[in-house]
């Protein structure tokens, strides 16, 4: 039994084939004199080399942990995010995916909703697939408060012991669920784009991009429950509505002590204008430096208006103060995954691509035929966005009868 993890190359078995060198995502292995050597300063003990080695020459000892009794953890939970009593669409995506996981695990699918005067919304959660809905309904929970929301969820998790707990990778979700995971010592995987159940172990296989999508990692939480994950917007399919579905509504008592908060909201300023939320948008019309001046973003707003789309922006246009930062797509802005992404006058620097390249369809409009955006575009149009965009608006208006 070792209390510390270690990795080593078994010299008698290593043939110096370099398979491990190729497999290592961290450049931590070199082969010298036909022998692999692992640079422990770079190694993260991920085990990719162990899997790649055909000679069983790398030994990874993971610290032995007293395996906890996990059998008491049942059910798949989904955090139902609401803003002003409106359930956010990500919740339905989580219910859609959660249903599959729950069926495979032969467990219940449960939604958890926190808010004030939200009992009405619970039937919608049942219609979208929840077998049970846990409700914490208190005036103090009317809007998201980091501490109070976390305290209530921690209490619910400790009492009801879910096996899997999913949450949207939204601003609220990410701020909240990390507090819960740390507090109950659960594993938490951020921003998943794929979830599945390992049929052999029942573990949740959580797949997520890292390094701006350059690599994908599959992650498990073998010895802790619940298995927690945040899920990226628009990747999972929304649960279909079935008003005939039946489910249990469980109104939970909330102790006053849980509602304490050392931070309080003094104001909320809603962004005005023709605003469709970027993260939730099915279609995004984005513009960059190629639009030449801020006024020309109106052309994008017109197209977005016809399509019911959100307006996005490249970093260049934000840095030039043409668009507010909240619309920036890319590495230092938002990661989006809409059905259609229009890139108008955006050259497609790698920092922009990492924020939008998982969109289903990408339409690129750019004057420069060599622009890198065309390398990822489903449809490329070489031309001036200032001319093409208004024509698209007109044509869509005709076709859609608007």
């Amino acid at each position: 039994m070792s209390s510390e993890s270690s990795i080593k190359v078994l010299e008698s078995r290593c043939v110096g084939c370099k398979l491990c060198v190729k497999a290592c995502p961290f450049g931590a292995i070199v082969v010298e004199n036909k022998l692999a050597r692992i640079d422990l300063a770079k190694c993260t003990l991920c085990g990719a080399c162990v899997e790649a080695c055909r000679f069983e020459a790398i030994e990874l000892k993971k610290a032995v942990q007293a395996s906890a009794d996990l059998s008491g953890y049942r059910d798949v939970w989904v955090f139902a995010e609401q803003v002003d009593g409106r359930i956010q669409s990500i919740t339905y995506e989580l219910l859609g995916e959660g249903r599959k996981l729950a069926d495979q695990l032969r467990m219940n699918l449960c939604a958890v909703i926190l808010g004030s005067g939200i009992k009405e919304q619970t039937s919608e959660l049942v219609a979208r697939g929840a077998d049970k809905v846990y409700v914490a309904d208190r005036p103090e929970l009317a809007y998201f408060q980091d501490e109070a929301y976390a305290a209530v969820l921690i209490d619910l998790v400790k009492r009801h012991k879910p096996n899997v707990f999913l949450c949207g990778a939204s601003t609220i979700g990410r701020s909240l669920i990390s507090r819960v995971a740390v507090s109950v010592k659960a594993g938490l995987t951020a921003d998943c784009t794929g979830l599945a159940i390992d049929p052999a172990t029942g573990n949740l296989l959580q797949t997520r991009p890292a390094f701006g999508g350059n690599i994908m990692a599959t992650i498990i939480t073998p010895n802790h429950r619940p298995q927690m994950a945040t899920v990226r917007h628009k990747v999972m399919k929304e649960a279909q509505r079935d008003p005939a579905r039946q489910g249990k509504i469980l109104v939970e008592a909330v102790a006053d002590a849980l509602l304490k908060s050392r931070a309080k909201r003094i104001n909320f300023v809603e962004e005005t204008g023709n605003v469709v939320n970027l993260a939730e948008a099915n279609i995004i019309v984005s513009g960059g430096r190629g639009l030449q001046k801020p006024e020309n973003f109106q052309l994008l707003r017109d197209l977005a208006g016809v399509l019911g789309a959100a307006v996005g922006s490249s970093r260049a246009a934000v840095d030039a103060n043409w668009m507010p930062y909240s619309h920036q797509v890319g590495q230092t802005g938002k990661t989006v995954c809409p059905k259609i992404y229009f890139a108008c006058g955006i050259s497609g620097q790698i920092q922009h691509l990492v924020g939008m390249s998982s969109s289903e369809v990408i339409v690129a409009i750019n004057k420069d035929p060599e622009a890198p955006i065309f390398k990822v575009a489903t449809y490329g149009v070489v031309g001036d966005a200032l001319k093409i965009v208004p024509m698209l608006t007109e044509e869509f208006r005709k076709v859609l009868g608007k």
Partner: protein
Amino acid sequence: MQFIVCIKQVPETTDVRIDPKTNTLMREGVVSIINPFDMYAIEEAVRLKERVGGKVTAISMGPPQAEAALREAIAMGVDTGILLSDRAFAGSDTWATSYTLSRAIRKIGEFGVILCGKQASDGDTAQVGPGMATHLDLPQVTYVRKIETIDDKHLVAERLLESGFEVIDIQLPCLLTVVKEINEPRLPSLKGKMAAKKAEIVKWTAQDLGAESEKIGLNGSPTKVVKIFTPQPRQGGKVLKGEPSEIVPQLVQELRDIVLGSAS
């Protein structure tokens, strides 16, 4: 007031390329930088110091070479750099990382505000900030785009949300994570560069932190990576050629069904 800023050294993502032969990440010659979001946290901490007085301490957990990140922070106006480096930290997930950093913060002693970037550009989790706040039992505001006011007892910050922003009054001590909009990081001054060169970087190991071995590194990490792979790079599709008057109707036809399907 003491301000603490937590920073991470990351590969400069633009330089991360995929080897077409082996289909793996090429890390050779990849330059390490301070996580871009942490630059805003450093700048904001230095600005707070300039506003109300005090000192700024930067902490980084990482391999010995992460010392360079701390020196860069000092060049920008940070007073002290602390490096948490120990083989026992290797393989930490966000649970173990936030525990380790929180142990270091406890060791530092009194402070007013902890600042972090909203997330790191390599892992993109945004989990370590709120995780630390939980380990330290602190209130938090994430995605801060502006600090309006600050005094001994509390501060007022604006948090960027999907649909706008909210103004939050929060008691000190507290933890903030910041977004790019909050400021424009300064370039190091000559004086700063000199200070960075001369600075003594404090180095703490697991033992120095009094960290429990089952809460750090791989042992302390509930999540385990079981597979790493490179996704198929996205392929470009059709380039529509011809007069705009021909291309546009063609494009609209192609997209029509998706647009109609997305309306709900």
